[in-house]
């Protein structure tokens, strides 16, 4: 996670750079649209000024998609009279810092960029406000204007616990197959439709002597690293996290899934990939040494970075391969905004107005394809923006089938419970990450690693 921010910052920068090169007219149109016109907001039938004079602090990670928001935040202040201050905290620390703020009830951060897997923890401790009442209050939200249902359903689901909404997605990602079109064509291969074919493709391309490895997946241990990809494989192999109401991480499906992952990584990935996170994989791919990988759609901007990449124009995308269960299961992520429950009422309202503004279609567009700066976001939160021709044009420069693969995955391949969403997630995620890595490194067999993880997780779930 440490690298995520810097890499993302850089990554989003390159989105913009390529957009400038490839779509100068679109860029100019975007620049013209960059203005301080508040009319798209004032058309909402609410009193934006109702919390005027309040001050709120928002914790975000240093990443260009938040930088874009920060740079147009003066418009929000003008619209509402609310003072907003941003604090940038690296992703490796933001969870801990915000948990400490929430648990001590100091209300330092009115809202923060939240890990969707933490909402269950927030809800269990009543640290965050259930947002339905803000959404349904006509004095606070113009439902028709805000059009909440337009926000990608998979991300909305991820930010809810037991049907209650705790965060509003701002930016997100979905994992897809990224592969070398040229290498696949030369060998007559097709993008994998199932996991077996993915391994077969990797085997066909694997040629370490000539510095080409078949495939790579995240190897480094972490709840947001290897435990971001493995759950998709586990679910594709027919695994269920809750068997008879009990969290189960071992068993035949888990063993089959972890064996598939370990075999693929040992046979067809570079040895160093055991310690790789997604930026390392995307770097290696852009140097032409990897045949295919499965990771976030936003990594496309790294492999399309004109300064570094040797594979521009040779990249294509596809949805996750199907597992033995016949299912495709993508890993999804979003940074959403919750409301800190320790705030006084008026400040909660101010915070909601901020969240509503940030997640609105207009702000999403103004921080994406309408943004005047070079870095334009690729993880906008709304279906309508994903269907906007200006956005599609910006995104399709990344390679064949990019928008289609990402959109189909978001619509058809998600399941909100692809990871076990419980308050104990931080502990479970870390335990599983360690187990997966110890199996990969050969410190334990697949079965012992999983059985041991199960033994450690059981007492965590007991009251």
């Amino acid at each position: 996670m440490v690298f995520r921010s810097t890499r993302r910052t850089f990554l989003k920068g390159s989105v913009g750079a390529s957009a400038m090169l490839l779509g100068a007219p679109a860029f100019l149109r975007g620049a013209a649209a960059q203005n301080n016109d508040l009319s798209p907001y004032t058309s909402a039938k609410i009193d934006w000024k109702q919390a005027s004079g309040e001050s709120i602090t928002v914790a975000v990670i240093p990443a260009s998609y938040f930088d874009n928001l920060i740079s147009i935040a003066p418009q929000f202040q003008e619209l509402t009279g609310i003072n907003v201050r941003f604090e940038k905290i690296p992703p490796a620390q933001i969870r801990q810092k915000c948990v400490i703020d929430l648990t001590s009830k100091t209300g330092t951060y009115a809202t923060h960029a939240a890990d969707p897997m933490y909402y269950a923890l927030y809800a269990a401790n009543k640290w965050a406000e259930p947002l339905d009442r803000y959404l349904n209050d006509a004095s606070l939200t113009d439902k028709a204007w805000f059009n909440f249902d337009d926000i990608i359903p998979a991300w909305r689901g991820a930010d809810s616990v037991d049907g209650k909404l705790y965060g509003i997605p701002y930016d997100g990602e979905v994992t897809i197959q990224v592969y070398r079109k040229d290498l696949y064509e030369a060998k007559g291969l097709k993008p994998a439709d199932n996991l077996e074919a993915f391994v077969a493709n990797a085997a066909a391309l694997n040629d370490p002597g000539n510095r080409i490895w078949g495939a790579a997946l995240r190897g480094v241990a972490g709840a947001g690293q290897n435990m971001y990809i493995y759950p998709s494989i586990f679910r594709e192999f027919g695994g269920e996290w809750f068997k008879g109401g009990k969290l189960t991480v071992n068993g035949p499906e888990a063993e089959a899934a972890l064996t598939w992952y370990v075999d693929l990584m040992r046979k067809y990935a570079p040895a160093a990939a055991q310690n790789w996170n997604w930026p390392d994989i995307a770097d290696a791919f852009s140097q032409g040494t990897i045949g295919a990988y499965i990771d976030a759609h936003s990594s496309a901007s790294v492999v399309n970075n004109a300064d570094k990449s040797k594979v521009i124009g040779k990249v294509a995308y596809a949805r996750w391969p199907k597992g033995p269960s016949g299912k495709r299961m993508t890993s999804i992520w979003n940074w959403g905004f919750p409301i800190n429950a320790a705030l006084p009422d008026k400040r909660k309202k101010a915070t909601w107005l901020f969240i509503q503004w940030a997640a609105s279609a207009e702000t999403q567009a103004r921080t994406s394809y309408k943004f005047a700066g070079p870095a334009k976001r690729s993880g906008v939160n709304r279906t309508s923006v994903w269907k906007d021709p200006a956005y599609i044009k910006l995104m399709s420069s990344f390679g064949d089938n990019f928008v289609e693969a990402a959109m189909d995955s978001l619509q058809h391949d998600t399941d909100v419970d692809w990871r076990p969403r419980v308050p104990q997630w931080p502990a479970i995620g870390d335990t599983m990450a360690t187990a997966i890595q110890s199996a990969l490194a050969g410190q334990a067999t697949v079965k012992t690693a999983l059985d041991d993880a199960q033994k450690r997780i059981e007492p965590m779930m007991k009251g």
Partner: protein
Amino acid sequence: MLTGSGTSMDAPAFISSMDAGRVLARRERRFASALLAPAFAALLATTTFPLLYLIWTSAFRIDLAMPFTNGFIGIDNYRDLLADSRFWSSLSVSMIYTISTVVLQVAIGLGLALFVMGMKKGQGLFRLIAILPVVLSPAVVGMVWRTFMLQPEFGIVDFLSINAGLGSQNWLGDPTLAMISVIVIHTWQWTPFAFMVLLASLAALPDDIYEAARIDRASAWQRFRRITLPLLRPAIVMVVIMRTMVALTAFAAIFTVTGGGPGTATEILNLYAYRKSFTELSIGYGSALAVALLVVTIIISAALFAVRRAK
């Protein structure tokens, strides 16, 4: 104090010289304690209180993921700890790490010190170069080793290994190699400390004993074994004690290089306590682990101090 001085000034005639002396001494003591008080209070507040609070916390179940289960549980955390296989494995990792790094530091440091003592020229330059790793932050050292030195295919160590015919190794991906790597990193950074201390002690050894030994035709090995080592013993024991305490509580370098991985291969006790507290948010149990580390450190240091006093 004010009234005291007032009285003595009002009635100087009734106070004998002895009384005056006692009053003065008492005043002196009070003044001294007044001067000491702020520092003492600051010390209490910043070290003793957190320590007691840590021990107090370790008697509770504080699990942020399940707030409804929190409460006083006495020694249950310690009972769990004794039955926790990961505690024992992290303790043994800590032991292996500490013993091997301390032995290597003293052995290499002593070797270097003897070598430098015999150098006619360039001692100053050598000392300057040797001290460089010590002044670096362990986190920086960790990042440098992880990226420049140990990266398969591109790292310097791997480059040397390939050229030496050993082939490319996955230095941080293999459990044994990862353990060796973190030991080497710690040794690389801290050997200069042992080297400097031992060099200073060597320089202070009296020449006449060696002269006498030479006249008696003692071999170089005999001189080292019978004279240098016994005379250096206090310095060596001191280095061992200081380095042991630091190695037991090491954190930053391992955290940045392997994060305790692969799996739990390099997870020292300190790192396990950190993960329990701040990643798994199980603060009570994490505190118990930290107290256990404290106890282990105290026992080992006490044993080493006993060795130092003996003889």
